[in-house]
């Protein structure tokens, strides 16, 4: 029957089953690839993937560093290698994973936080004061249609290629959507509750801070979770073009060097970070807004 509820145990069985099936298919596929092209790393075996993971978390040996530089020379050309040798630690840090994680996550969190805070503030103002909404929403609507990765050269020009550029780009990419959505959520705040707050003695500021903001907070956290994906897209694209560190940079360099046994773990770890961030925001929502899941929407 359509929509028939599942027992928890049945649902788990199906979930685990699908994951196991996927892993099994990958195993078969990678083994077959090895039989056809021994040593190929485009679909690495589990042991190759483990080696790749070790490469990410352990300090590369001297000969590996040389091999890495050779690969980079092949991938980027001699000019890039010359630059890399001037500051070799930018390309070959002691712990690639640690360095890439610090760079990418700080950029992601900085950009996402800036976009969300700016978007929520502006969205609340637009939702509460419709003259501001009338003035700002056409601009925000237009800005929300601009593809940040397409406008990347403008960001390079305006904000350089350091941390500020990534934060600006992610904030620019997320803020218009956050602003318009928050404005819409605020306008959906029931009139009756607004009037009631006034009859209980609340000022305009009190209505915003004690009635509207707590009401929209869980929806803002839902929005933050939704924005993680686009923010990562903008960030990884920018890192692949201009960064000297971070996941995007590593993935690009290692892909050119056909080191897929390292690229895949990098992608999985990046996905794990996004999942951890999502789980943290869900936990925050559960702790700060216990009423939300009870049906008080």
């Amino acid at each position, binding site marked *: 029957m359509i929509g028939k509820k599942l027992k928890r145990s049945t649902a788990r069985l199906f979930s685990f089953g699908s994951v196991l099936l996927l892993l099994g298919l990958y195993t078969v596929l990678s083994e077959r690839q090895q039989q056809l092209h021994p040593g190929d790393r485009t679909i690495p075996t589990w042991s190759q993937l483990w080696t790749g993971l070790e490469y990410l978390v352990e300090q590369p040996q001297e000969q590996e560093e040389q091999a890495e530089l050779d690969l980079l020379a092949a991938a980027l050309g001699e000019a890039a290698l010359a630059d890399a040798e001037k500051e070799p630690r930018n390309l070959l840090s002691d712990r690639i994973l640690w360095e890439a994680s610090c760079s990418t996550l700080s950029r992601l969190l900085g950009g996402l936080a800036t976009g969300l805070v700016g978007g929520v503030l502006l969205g609340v103002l637009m939702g509460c004061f419709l003259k501001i909404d009338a003035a700002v929403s056409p601009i925000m609507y237009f800005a929300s249609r601009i593809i940040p990765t397409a406008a990347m050269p403008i960001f390079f020009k305006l904000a350089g290629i350091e941390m500020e550029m990534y934060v600006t780009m992610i904030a620019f990419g997320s803020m218009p959507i956050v602003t318009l959505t928050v404005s819409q959520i605020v306008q959906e705040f*029931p009139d*009756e509750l607004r*009037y*009631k707050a006034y*009859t*209980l*003695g*609340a000022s305009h500021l009190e209505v915003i*801070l004690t009635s509207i903001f707590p009401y929209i907070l869980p929806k803002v956290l839902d929005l933050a979770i939704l924005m993680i994906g686009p923010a990562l897209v903008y960030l990884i694209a920018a890192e692949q073009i201009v960064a000297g560190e971070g996941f995007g940079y590593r993935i690009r360099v290692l892909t050119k060097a056909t080191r897929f046994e390292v690229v895949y773990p990098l992608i999985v770890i990046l996905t794990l970070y996004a999942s951890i961030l999502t789980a943290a925001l869900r936990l925050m929502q559960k702790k700060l807004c216990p009423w939300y899941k*009870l049906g008080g929407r």
Partner: protein
Amino acid sequence: MAGPILELKDLGHGFGDHPVLHQVNLKIQRGEIIALVGPSGCGKSTLLRAIVGTHPPREGKVLMWDGDRPCIVDSPGRERGIVYQRYSLFPHLTAQENVAYGLMVDETETRDRLFRRAWWRNLRKQHMEQAAEMLERMKLEEALHKYPPEMSGGMCQRVAIAQALIMKPSILLLDEPFGALDEATREELQRILLGLYAENEKAKAAGEEPAHTVLIVTHEINEAIFVSNRLVGLSQYWNWQERGRSSCPGATIVYDQATPIFSPDDDRDFLSFRDQKDEILKQVFHTNQLQDPSLYVQAVPEEEETSSL
């Protein structure tokens, strides 16, 4: 001791070209429990919004008395408490926090709550105790820490009444507050209103000012007669043709009569006021009964001079 608390003077309202209310005149005395009934779409809620101050009238005035001085109502204020049928509570607050909300926003400011933490903690404790007492009075002691989605409709409405009453408003406005509830819960809440009237009578007997003035909008006539001491009928079915109008200029008051008084412990015998119910149905709800509103409008005594406002 009891004097006027709210007056509507020649109040008119409409939306675009569509008139809704026309020359509504009503004076409410302190301590009265007034029921407002009328056909669907006659403008009962619009009238209530004009009194709340969220939709000021196009014509006429809403006057509130603060002691002997009347003042014009043009925005919501804490002297007019309101309970709605829907969205009666803040979903992000527990029952106790909902009731304490008014005390918080009325007695403190954001900066005090942020920067005078110790002072605010003490005051908050007092507010929460007051809220708990009020909820106990409404027989809701077991629901103190429940969120609105965890409570039944009847419990939510009782919390909403407690939320409004704790602020001691000059007048409590109820906009079809029991409309979505089952009959048993409706009766329970109707008896709470009768309890408020009984408190008023006790206060009057002791020479004190009655504490509760209530205006309840309802579409249920039995309920209106049972809970109130006065019933007002608002209707668009009146003899506007005789006033030289080619179309209805809006609803106006066509019925204003006292109702029998019940105590909270009395049986709810609807048959005992069947004649009055039939009369209301005939005068307020029947489209073919064109009433002369001047009979009722002028029945409101002309008292204090307020024309200067």
